[in-house]
């Protein structure tokens, strides 16, 4: 009996198993070298595969948010531009009112300026951004502001008629006393710009503003609406100048109207600036959210690459080593098969 024994099958098979194992390794390493990722990500990561799915979902969500933030920022800048224009518009009317000389001629001119200003306001309030009206609040589908001639004019003139028993611009309008006019402006006329009159006659906007998700768990108001007090004041001021037949009134009553319009528009200009400031906060918030999103997207992408990726240098070194091993294994297999007593006996 031999003290140590090895069967021919055991001797010959040993290198064969190794060759199989090495070839699988070579195939995996070359794949890793080509893609810089694990050959079988699920098998290498195991439980972490779930985490990778979560991370990829987060990256995707962040990219979605960044894209929709772009849309929100565009909407805000359209809104800001419209508000700026309205402010300029109001300022130039205010200048004209302050410098208004007495007389029918000047009153005629300022009436015309008021009317065209009102048209410009309407145009601005109906500004849209890719199909949705930016001053509509939640109601982005309908143009929020009704043009003066398309309804509101009739309402204003009806109120005038009801109060004074005569039409706007009628020859007897110069009989209206300044006190009556002041009372009309403070009550009947002013009422037209409060709810519910404003909603039925002028605006179809929703008082609720658009809210967007600007970061993973941050929401911001990303729009305004035509029902804001600043906008009502602008419109009221312009209508006073344009819609009450300024040139037909007595100089004293005219002064009452002009003074009231000056106060209103002056107030409106500072209110508009406030509104712009509020929207500016939202723009700011979006910008900062974007910066944070970029930062976290980069971190997440790095984390994904770190976990799923392989070091190509390491893979190359391993591949070289494996190739050498494989060559030695082949050589050994050949040598072993030549090693037989039959060659010597």
């Amino acid at each position, binding site marked *: 009996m031999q003290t140590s024994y*090895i069967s021919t099958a055991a001797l010959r098979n040993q290198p064969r198993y190794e060759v199989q194992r090495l070839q699988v390794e070579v195939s995996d390493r070359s794949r890793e070298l080509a893609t810089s990722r694990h050959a079988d990500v699920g*098998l290498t990561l195991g439980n972490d*595969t779930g*985490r990778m*799915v979560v991370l990829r*979902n987060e990256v995707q969500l962040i990219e979605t*948010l960044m894209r929709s933030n772009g849309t929100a920022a565009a909407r805000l800048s359209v809104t800001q531009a419209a508000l700026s224009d309205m402010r300029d518009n109001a300022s130039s009317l205010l200048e004209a009112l302050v410098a208004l000389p007495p007389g029918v001629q000047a009153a005629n001119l300022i009436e015309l300026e008021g009317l065209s200003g009102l048209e410009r306001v309407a145009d601005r309030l109906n500004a849209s951004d890719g199909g*949705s009206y930016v001053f509509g*609040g939640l109601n982005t589908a309908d143009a929020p502001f009704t043009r003066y001639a398309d309804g509101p004019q009739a309402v204003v003139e009806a109120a005038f008629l009801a109060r004074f028993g005569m039409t706007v611009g009628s020859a007897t309008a110069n009989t209206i006393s300044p006190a009556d006019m002041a009372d009309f402006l403070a009550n009947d006329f002013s009422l037209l710009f409060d709810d519910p009159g404003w909603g039925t006659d002028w605006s179809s906007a929703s008082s609720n503003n658009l809210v967007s998700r600007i970061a993973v768990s941050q929401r911001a108001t990303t729009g305004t609406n035509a029902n804001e007090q600043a906008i009502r004041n602008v419109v009221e001021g312009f209508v006073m100048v344009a819609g009450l037949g300024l040139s037909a009134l007595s100089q004293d009553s005219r002064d009452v109207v002009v003074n009231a319009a000056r106060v209103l528009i002056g107030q409106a200009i500072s209110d508009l600036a406030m509104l712009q400031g509020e929207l500016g906060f939202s723009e700011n918030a979006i910008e900062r959210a974007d910066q944070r999103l970029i930062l976290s997207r980069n971190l997440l992408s790095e984390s994904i690459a770190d976990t799923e990726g392989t070091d190509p240098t390491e893979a190359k070194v391993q591949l070289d080593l494996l190739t050498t091993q494989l060559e030695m294994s082949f050589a050994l297999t050949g040598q072993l098969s030549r090693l037989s007593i*039959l060659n010597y006996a």
Partner: protein
Amino acid sequence: MNLDVASNIARQSLIASQFQIALSSRNVAAADDPTRSRAAATLATTIDGGVRIGGVRRAEDTAVYTRMIDATSVTAERDAVLQHLNVLSELVGDPENNTSIGAMIGEMNSALVDYANAPDDPLFGRTVIERARDVADKLNRTSSELLLLRDTADSRIAGGVDSVNQLLLSLDEINKNIVKGTISGRDVTMDLDRRDGIVAQISEYIGVKTLSRSNNDIALFTDSGVTMYDNGVREVSFARTTVFTATTAAGEVFVDGLPITGASAPMPAKAGSIVGSASVRDYIIPTYQLQMDEIAREITDIFTDGVGSLFLNGGGPDYAGTISVSATVDPTQGGTVENLRDGTGNLSGFAGYSDRLLSLSDALAGTSAFDPNTELNATSSLLDFSAETAGWIENLRKSTNDDVNAEAAILRQSSDTLSRATGVNLDDEYAQQLMIERSFSASSKIISIVDEMFDTLLRIN
């Protein structure tokens, strides 16, 4: 002592040499068969001082053989599980390709956020509906694929049971031969090799233990102790399930009338490919199925709100198989995406209404309650839960793959050890043949010398 004795002894030696060379040639022929072991003749001294063949002994190592059998069954069990898991992991795919259910729900969530930030744009709504359809399709397909996989596992069990029964019949035949042969003093080494081979084959299907008895008889038990063979075959039986549905409870494998798989088995078998397929069929796939059903149930619940419901399902337990996109929100089925945007909340019908969409997206990321039997975190967000299903499968695949590698190494090592101990070395065989040749020529020489001596003797007379 006389010349007759010398001639007789030489003749005995010739016969012994011939027997030995015949054995050696049998060994050479068996060198490449891993189930055969090396046979050697034992020589005995005859009454007149010559030699005769006392018997044939085969090289064996019971301890290593038992270890090899154990390793075979454990490897077969793990390997059967791994094969199924590899198919299951195809359902998950590479995380890079976003083919898992978790990634699809993630994509739907992104589309939802897009829509929430531009609720007046129905194109974004359409995208949500399309992503929702992907989710529903994925759940449907996964569900039917899982039923198919259960069926595959079931048919593998059936195939395994058939093979075991066949092998047990062969074992019975050969074992009876061995016992008879041993009693009558015949050379039974070849039959012993074949019997060892059959036991090894059975151990691929079910883990076994053998008990050796007198006259080389054996009894065979499952690794849990249920008798499979003892002076006769005990039947292994299994009823194949013809159609799998979500609620099908599949049949169990019985040995000698006792179940060896399933929760009701008093002595469940531990290893072998049948056990592996059964655990895939009865545990892994149903658990994954439950995870899919829980996803389908929860995602339907989250999105339910009158005409604004995004999903419909046919109720438990087969939520995943029956989930579909609701017609009221799907333009291709005559609905409108505005229903999804508004639910029952947007009374004024404003196009910019985003409250519901925002809260839906929050609900996907918020905490939901799931069945604790899913083996995942039972209180987590739907997004995390659905993503973790991929981790669950891959984790199982990873650990099973590690097991297979480890067990295969053990199996290879014990096979190698067994082969070293009991296999044939061709060089050694050849060296022995040379020795036998020498002994044969020496004995022949003696016969011719005795012959010459007789000649000389006869010539003197």
